[in-house]
Structures are given as structure tokens and as C-alpha cells.
């Protein structure tokens, strides 16, 4: 760790393989819409990157309501990947996002390897997309989703297909709902992923004891928020030590202190997800807090703290 004696303005830029971010803070897929809603709260150009809601080949209606419920320090959701579809995204949503000085990461999803490939091909041709994040870990859809993310060969096949369909940086978003994430990270690396997103939601369930019904219509849902942070930090640390790819860490990051925990564990960048719901300004406050930490500790580059936990 390089220390300097006088407080200088540290550099926040980090590199996710071929993708350079002006700062390590991204918004997590599905928690930031297509950016428009939050653009009313702050200038999106402040962000290191924006990840879109998951995009599929055709528009998707998503799951029936109720779709979410609160849990202790967390929430369950089963949105079911409701989205406008990749074509409408490119036509109607992307131009808005392209107007900001930030990296746009298109999160994609398919029911088959071919669908992943087709979505990728369209995004590859679109102007203003800077990277593709491949969601093989959504617990809330019947086919595909987590089914890919819990099978080593399917993981390889999907990532490989996406890799072959684009020259954009490819980020594999892995499922935490496996015995050991490391082999999955390894397969994704071999398939040509440039970076990893860790973690997606944990599979959970909640029951209303009065009605005796599941609190969300889909029965099970994805658990996100501070409750899962210790699991996410552990997975980032395990994968960082074992696999050479840069990591976007996420899972319960609410403030700069949480974000720094992930970076020390091995994350190159971090994403705010559920935090956006609680505090629309969370991402910008996290950026400021990381900068403050670097200054206070005399560290001149954000990248110097990556993986620096003394363990």
C-alpha cells in the first residue's frame, strides 16, 4: 500500500479488465431502472458506471404481484425480469443513458444460450453500451437464470457464446447459491469473461402466518440488502484469492464503509443495489466516502486497497 504524507486528491479510477471506470461505484442491475428515475436526484455522470435492468430478447411481463417484501435488514424480490426487451431498450432507453459521461453496462438474460447470444449481438451493434453483464444467476425465473449459474458447463457455454458475439467487455454475474463459487468463476474466466459480478441475490422465502401464504406470489425470491453482506464479502474474498479476474462486488452495500469492505476483500469496483431504494443518493455518497477514506489514509489510488485485507 503506497502512503503519502500530505493529503492529495487520490485517483479513483479503476480498471475492470478492458473497461476503465472513473471511480469504482456502479449501480446494480434491477435496482436503478434505466437510469431515468434516479437522474432526477443526481447527475448520473458522477457514477463510475450504470448497470441496466436485465434485458431479454423479447419484452417480459415479469412475475405476478406481490413481488417484494421486507425481511430483517433485507428484502425479497421476485420481479421476474420484467423489462422492455433489448430492442426497445436500444431505441428508447439507451439514447438517454448515452447522454451521460459514465459507463453503461447492459445486463442481459436469456432462456437459452441462443437468446443470450442474440441479445448480445444486438447490444454489440448499439452505440453507447460499454460492457455486457451476463446474468446467469437470477433466482426468480423458471427457465435459464439460476439454472445456468449452478451448472459449470452451462456457465461456460453461456459466457463463451456471449464472448463470441461481442467485442465489448464481458462481465459474468455469478450465483451465490452454489456450494463453491470458485469453480464457476474459473469456468467463466476460461470462457473469456473479462470480469465477474459477485453476488446476485440469495434464494429466500417468507410466509405470512396470518394468511398462511408466501409473502411473494412467486413463493421464493431473491434476498438482497445488508443481511447478505457477510456472505457477499466472503465470496468476493474467496474468488479474489483463487481467480485472476477483476470483481465487481455487491450485496448489501449501503455506504462507503461497506463498499471499502468489499474492495479490501478483493473487489475492483462495487455496486449499490438495494441501497438505491433506501437512499437515492447512496452511490454518490459512497464515491465521496471512498475518496475521504483514501485521503485520510494517505492512499493515492483507489486500486491500492483492492484485496488488501490482512487475512
Amino acid at each position, binding site marked *: 500500500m503506497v502512503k503519502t504524507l500530505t493529503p492529495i486528491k487520490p485517483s479513483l479510477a479503476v480498471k475492470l479488465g478492458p473497461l476503465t471506470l472513473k471511480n469504482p461505484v456502479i449501480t446494480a442491475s434491477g435496482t436503478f431502472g434505466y437510469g431515468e428515475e434516479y437522474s432526477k436526484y443526481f447527475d448520473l455522470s458522477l457514477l463510475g458506471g450504470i448497470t441496466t435492468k436485465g434485458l431479454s430478447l423479447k419484452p417480459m411481463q415479469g412475475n405476478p*404481484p406481490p*413481488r417484494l417484501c421486507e425481511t430483517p435488514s433485507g428484502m425479497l424480490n421476485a420481479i421476474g425480469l*420484467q423489462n422492455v426487451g433489448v430492442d426497445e431498450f436500444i431505441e428508447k432507453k439507451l439514447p438517454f443513458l448515452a447522454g451521460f459521461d459514465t459507463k453503461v453496462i447492459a445486463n442481459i438474460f436469456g432462456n437459452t444460450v441462443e437468446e443470450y447470444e442474440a441479445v448480445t449481438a444486438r447490444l454489440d451493434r448499439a452505440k453507447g453500451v460499454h460492457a455486457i453483464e451476463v446474468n446467469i444467476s437470477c433466482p426468480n425465473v423458471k427457465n435459464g437464470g439460476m439454472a445456468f449459474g449452478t451448472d459449470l458447463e452451462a456457465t461456460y457455454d453461456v459466457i463463451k457464446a456471449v464472448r463470441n458475439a461481442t467485442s465489448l467487455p464481458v462481465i459474468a454475474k455469478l450465483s451465490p447459491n452454489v456450494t463453491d463459487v470458485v469453480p464457476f468463476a474459473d469456468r467463466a474466466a476460461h470462457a473469456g469473461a473479462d470480469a465477474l459480478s459477485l453476488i446476485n441475490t440469495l434464494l429466500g422465502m417468507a410466509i405470512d402466518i396470518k394468511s398462511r401464504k408466501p409473502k411473494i406470489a412467486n413463493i421464493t425470491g431473491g434476498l438482497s440488502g445488508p443481511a447478505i453482506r457477510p456472505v457477499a464479502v466472503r465470496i468476493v474474498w474467496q474468488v479474489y484469492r483463487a481467480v485472476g479476474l477483476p470483481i465487481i462486488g455487491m450485496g448489501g452495500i449501503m455506504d462507503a464503509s461497506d463498499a471499502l469492505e468489499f474492495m479490501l476483500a478483493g473487489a475492483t469496483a462495487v455496486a449499490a443495489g438495494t441501497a438505491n431504494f433506501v437512499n437515492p443518493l447512496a452511490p454518490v455518497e459512497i464515491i465521496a466516502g471512498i475518496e475521504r477514506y483514501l485521503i485520510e489514509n494517505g492512499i493515492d489510488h483507489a486500486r491500492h486497497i483492492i484485496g488488501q485485507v490482512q487475512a
Partner: protein
Amino acid sequence: MIARIRKNEELTSGYFLVDIEAEGIGLHEAGRPAAGRPAVPGQFYMLKVGQSTDPLLRRPLSLHRKLTDDSVRFLYRQSGRGTALLSRLIPGDELDVLGPLGNGFPIPTGIKHALIVGGGIGVAPLMALADYISDERQDITAAAFIGGRSREYVLGADEFRRKRIETFTATEDGSLPRKGLITHVLDDYIREHMRKDACGRSTVCGWAVYSCGPKAMLISVAAMAKKYGIKNYTSMESNMACGIGACMGCVISVLDGGNGSSVYKKVCDDGPVFDADDIIW
């Protein structure tokens, strides 16, 4: 935005009125649609109660009364942990608030008479509507129909009357007349007042029903409005995470145009007020 509690008092067992103040809290935020214009009845705010991560999410509460540009009032029922925490705040305490959010009650041109129908805590957003009509819409008359379990839970009736809005009540236990459901009172009212005008058109054609309350009541109001051919706008509830249209968590099923197919609409963003005709209950 950080607001400060000015008053937080129990109105009747388990129901509270809280006044909060912050610069411009009664107005649309800079950068938001309608920036600088006042919050509209039917809109709501998302309140962060407590400092810890549990409870995690903000709680939606409807604008009950816009007191000034810098202060608003909510009427809330202590129903769970979040509202319990809120009820413990005292004057001077701070509170993180987002809003006003959502669409608000529409008053299409041609509306001359508003029937305001509330059950229990459903009165919360309807009071804002009554305020607006009596303060700013001399062209519209209104009648209010307020139901509750018993006398103490018929909220706001006196306030409505103070605004010179003809107000009817109903209680399930008969502790306040009329005993029974408010929907019966509404039905009688409509039937009594409905007649053909000179041109042979039903007088209810300039009427609109605004409803908020328990689901069973809303359904029966909607059916009645449909029967009499009166527009019905109703404020819906749903679990929310973001409150601003980003998470897709708060959707309900509504009819998509005339073809009978359904789509999911966001309560926070497309609502919370919907045309009752479109709702798939």
C-alpha cells in the same frame, strides 16, 4: 430530504397525525416533473423511519394535508414496526423523506361533483383532495362518505363538515349512524340524487367517485360506480421498495386498453391512483 417533526399525536387509538417540515417539502423537488409546483392530492411520500438497517425500506404515506410549502401532515395507522417507530418520534426529531411521488387524483374537465368515499385510514389522501376542492375549485361540489369500525375510527368527518362538504358516516357497530357499510349510504345517495336533466342525460355524468380504503370497500364502490356509470378513481396500495419507478416491485394488474388483456402497472409511478375500471382486483 431531511424533515423535522413538528407534531406527532395520537388522534384515536392507533391512528396518528404527524406534521413535518422541511424547505419545499410541499412542493415538487427540483429536477422532478412539475418542479416547484405544489404536491397534488393523492400523491405520497416515502419516509425512512429509524436509523438502522431494520426496518430497511422506506414507508409510503399519502399526503394528508399540505400545511404550507414547507410543511405537510400525514395521517397514519400504526400497523407494524415501521409505523410504530414513527409513532415514537417527538417534535424536533429528524426524518428522511422522499416526495411528493406518484400521480395524484385526476379531476378531468367536466367534473362538477366529487363523491369522496373513505374507509378507516383510507381517509388519509382524501382529506388532501377535499382541501384542494374546497380551497381551489369553487366550480366543484363534493359530498363525503366515511366509514369505520366504530365511532372513533370514522376519521376526519368533522373536518369535512368544517369545509362545508356534506358528510355521511357509517359504522359497523352502529356507534355512529348509520349502522352498516358506507357503501350502502353511498348507494342510497346516488339513487336519491340521480335524475335526468332537461336534456334527458343522467345528472351523474359530471360526477366522479374518489375512493380509498379497505379492498372489499373499494371493490364494492367500483362495482357501484360502474353500475351508475360514474367514473371512479381509487388510490391503491402495494409493497414498495423504491417508490420512484425503478424497482418494478409494486406493480398491480390492470386492463390494457379495450382488448381485455392485462398489464402490470407500477403503483408508485403509474399510480397510486388508478381508474377503478381498469383494475383487476
